[in-house]
């Protein structure tokens, strides 16, 4: 998940910006506009017009969360075209991980050109700080943080640990009910 960097020059600070009052006034206008728009919407809903949403802000968790394109969410392990995991168990993600939440053990792969593969691959999302270094470090593009899942809470700590088949999407993550 390589991120391209584009250098953007800062806008010149004009006199109007430096005086600041005008900018404060502009900010207040936005606040007041939202206030009155929300007020009118709530009024209309109060009068029985249900098609109008209640406010301009997203009504999470009643409405689904809207994530940015580059948002770092739950990890996902990718597969090669032949269906085998891409991961070669090089341990670079485990090494770079500042939270030490990745635990991999390796084994010989039956494919001599692949040589090495992961026997187990566990990520403890309870420890993960979602820094994205693992995806950055991966030399074979095997790990992404784009499952677009952010609702990861569970009732037991050990359920925070996602195993290899779960990260690959081969097995549904099972969560124990509250004790």
């Amino acid at each position, binding site marked *: 998940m390589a991120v391209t960097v584009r250098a953007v020059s800062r806008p010149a600070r004009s006199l109007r910006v430096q005086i600041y009052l005008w900018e404060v006034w502009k900010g207040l206008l936005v606040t007041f506009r939202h206030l009155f728009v929300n007020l009118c919407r709530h009024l209309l809903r109060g009068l029985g017009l249900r098609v109008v949403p209640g406010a301009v802000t997203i009504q999470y968790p009643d409405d689904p969360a809207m994530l940015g394109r580059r948002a770092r969410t739950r990890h996902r392990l990718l597969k090669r075209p032949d269906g085998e995991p891409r991961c*070669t*168990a*090089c*341990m*670079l993600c*485990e*090494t770079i991980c500042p939270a030490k939440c990745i*635990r991999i*053990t*390796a*084994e*010989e792969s039956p494919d*001599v*050109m*692949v*040589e*090495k593969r992961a026997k187990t691959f566990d990520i403890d999302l309870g420890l993960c700080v979602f820094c994205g270094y693992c995806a950055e470090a991966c*030399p*074979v593009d095997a790990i992404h943080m784009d499952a677009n899942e952010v609702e990861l809470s569970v009732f037991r700590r050990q359920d925070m640990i996602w195993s290899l088949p779960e990260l690959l999407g081969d097995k549904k993550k099972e969560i124990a009910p509250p004790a």
Partner: protein
Amino acid sequence: MKPEPKRVKFKLNGREIEAAEGSLVIDAAREQGVEIPHYCYHPALGNPGNCRLCIVDVEGAPKPMVSCRLPVKEGLAVRSDTEAVKRAQASSLELHLINHPLDCPVCDQAGECGLQDFYMKFGRYESQMREDKLHKRKRTVIGPHVVLDQERCVLCTRCTRFTEQVSETHELGIFGRGHKEYIDLAPGKRLDNPYSGNVIDICPVGALTELDFRFKVRVWYLDMTDSVCPNCARGCSISVHANTKRPWHNDGRRVARIKPRYNPQVNGYWLCDEGRFGFKHLDENRLGRVMRLKSPRKEFGWDAALGEIAGEIRRLSGDRGGKGLAVIASGALSNKDWTAFKGLFVDTLKVKHFLFGPEPDQIGEQDELLRRREKVPNLQGGEALGFGGSIKSESWESLAREIESDRIWGLYIVDRDAAQVWGERGRKLWDRLSLVVYQGIHKDKSSELAHYRLPATAYVEEEGHFTNFEGVVQGYRKALEPVGQARPDWMIFSALREKLAGFPVSEAALS
């Protein structure tokens, strides 16, 4: 004696330095802290000069020269830091990398690879090569310990020179020509000589890797501790590579591998396979609890256990005479252990029956290079204190006869499987003994049959010194924490001696 070589002055990177006349520039530079990159040159294996990486500029010479074949002479001026040298090194590396697969993520050598290191330092990051890489045989098991990957080989020939010059077994050779050259086994041979593990160390790339260690743990997770090999009387300098920070790697074992450490007085650069791969026992069947095994079975603290043993010794000495205790030990004790051992058993208990000779259970193969017949590290340390000199070792046979004639009531075994040596006869001998104490590292037959079991630390869990068969004293450091309640042998001996304070029975009682 060869005459001391003349010391001459020559210039290295503009600095005037002194070195022995005729020594190699690459060695003289290393002495001064200037590291010249190289693959094929190895101080113990000669300098074929085929990797072309140790290139230096010589004043007056039209082209750069290889420093591993350049003898030092008076007035020589060498530079290893010029633009031309850097360009030549980058080009040499590019040549080595033409057919080298960049599979560092799956290669076990990554992290300690000469090609990786030098490429990061001096490499030319964009290769000009546009052809496909040449493929050779991958992942071939060529012996009990070694895996060969021909693609990764840079043909430095260190391994073939090792099998020619050091092990003199000639298993490996170079076949083919030009860019299709490859390292392989000589027809009908396997790399199974007693020193085969060394080719893994000298291989600068990942062409030769260790079969057991493969994929167990990445090398950068390992802690390295200076130690001494305890597997024979040679006492080779080793480095213990342990995986402690990430216990889920290496199948949960703590010691991942053993590597030789350069020591010109003892082992040079080498280590035999027995020493290199003989560490598995450190994480298997370990004793961790102080226990009374005869009924009623009980787990103890050290103080209570040693108090009870001391009481037993006092009682039995009173009843049956002070000469009835025999001690079985081995040369696996460190110098400090031997001293405490002597303090307890010779000075305090005045024991008359010792068995510490290596025959027959601690005897193995011997050869010219490193391996010694006695498979224990410190018989010499005991001898310095009189064990083997003024104090003679019993044989297993004579000790068994003493027990059979009921002259011996107690046996104190220090890390040696007596029940195994005595076999069927042992069970009968055991029944005649009123006190058997086993102090050791592993669960074995004797530790199961003993009345008291005291867990001791292995050499990687303590500090100490071994004196090798030539009298060289070497220290080893603590690499790991002890298992459970385990304590160093000397600490157990001294604590027991304290418990026996005031014991020395009168000479009259002994006779």
